[in-house]
């Protein structure tokens, strides 16, 4: 729809341009003819010795030419304004088209992320889905997913990418950037590193997403390094963080509770049906 409107505006713009060029040629022609006519009038010998020998007919023709020129110039101005308006509309459509493309891309990413998070009750598959979202949709080169043990008050890495799992030590809740983020439940986003200043350390996270369900901490996702081609965080990245904050936590909790529910319900077939159907 947008494409066809753009095409229509483009064709109209070309037509206007052509019309404008024709008008310009015609005006130039008329001006040249008027100038020739003026020269003829001025150069013509006067039989009665007066400076000008212009007949009434010639004067009328000259007036007609001048009126015609004025008319064409006005028409040219109108066409030029029409052309500018068409160009503005074209620009507007192009910007709108780009916005719609961007929005479509965002919605596709959010839909796929949400779909994959809730596609399974298997804890391993849920963790794999979280990892894929972080790697493929956000573009993290190094990250770790921590699980929160509320009794021990610590965060244990359960999945990672970019470095061995052993390189991510357990973190006490409330300690350091990751521990504090989980304790406070507020996402951490590191400020961009200024040019010329020292790079961030490999253990300093760029983003920490706390995973909470109804006020209970389930863990955190810490991104340590983004792909080189990512110059920073986009709106889509922030929307994916929002989604992970709530949906990843819910999916992890559901995957942990599901086996327990099935085991409990195993004693009563009707309850198994309720859970699985």
């Amino acid at each position, binding site marked *: 729809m947008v494409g066809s409107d753009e095409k229509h505006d483009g064709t109209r713009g070309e037509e206007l341009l052509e019309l404008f060029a024709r008008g310009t040629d015609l005006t130039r022609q008329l001006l040249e003819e008027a100038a020739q006519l003026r020269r003829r009038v001025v150069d013509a010998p006067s039989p009665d010795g007066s400076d000008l020998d212009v007949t009434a007919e010639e004067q009328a023709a000259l007036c007609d030419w001048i009126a015609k020129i004025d008319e064409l110039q006005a028409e040219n101005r109108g066409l030029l304004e029409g052309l500018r308006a068409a160009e503005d509309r074209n620009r507007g459509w192009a910007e709108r088209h780009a916005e719609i493309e961007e929005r479509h*891309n965002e919605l596709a990413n959010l839909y796929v992320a949400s779909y994959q998070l809730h596609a399974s009750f298997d804890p391993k598959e849920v963790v794999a889905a979280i990892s894929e979202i972080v790697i493929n949709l956000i573009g993290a080169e190094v990250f770790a997913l921590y699980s929160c043990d509320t009794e021990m008050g610590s965060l244990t890495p359960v999945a990672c990418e970019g470095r061995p799992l052993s390189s991510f030590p357990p973190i006490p809740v409330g300690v350091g950037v990751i521990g504090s983020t989980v304790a406070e439940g507020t996402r951490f986003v590191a400020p961009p590193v200024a040019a010329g200043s020292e790079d961030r350390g490999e253990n300093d996270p760029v983003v920490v997403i706390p995973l909470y369900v109804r006020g209970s901490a389930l863990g955190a996702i810490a991104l340590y390094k983004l792909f080189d081609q990512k110059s920073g965080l986009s709106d889509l990245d922030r929307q994916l963080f929002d989604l992970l904050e709530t949906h990843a936590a819910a999916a992890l909790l559901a995957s942990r509770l599901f086996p327990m529910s099935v085991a409990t319900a195993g004693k009563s077939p009707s309850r198994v049906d309720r859970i699985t159907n």
Partner: protein
Amino acid sequence: MTDYRILIVEDSPTMRQLLVFALKRMKGVQIVEAQDGMDGLRKVTSDHFDLVFVDINMPVMDGLKLISLIRSDASLSAMPICIITTEGAKDDRERAIVLGANEYLTKPIQANKVLSIARDLLKLPA
């Protein structure tokens, strides 16, 4: 309208779904999915495809091996191949191009970039 058949060889369900989402915006396109290189090879040799998207890092058979096998088959030598890789994996990308890949997509992918590459490789108007 002519139907174009596109094969997506990618082990990540997330990436497959995102690619399908993007490619389904083209009219007259049939999309088939394969979850690793071996599955991809089976499908590409048993059916006709106009374009193949291949991830480089896959279990069972990786993308580079799949590309070399596709290009060694005379009946598939002209089939366009687009690889999916990360910006950091430049060596893999260069190797894939040497082996016969026509284009590459870097993760995270953008739907409009996927469409633009698909249209280009299928020689469709933009």
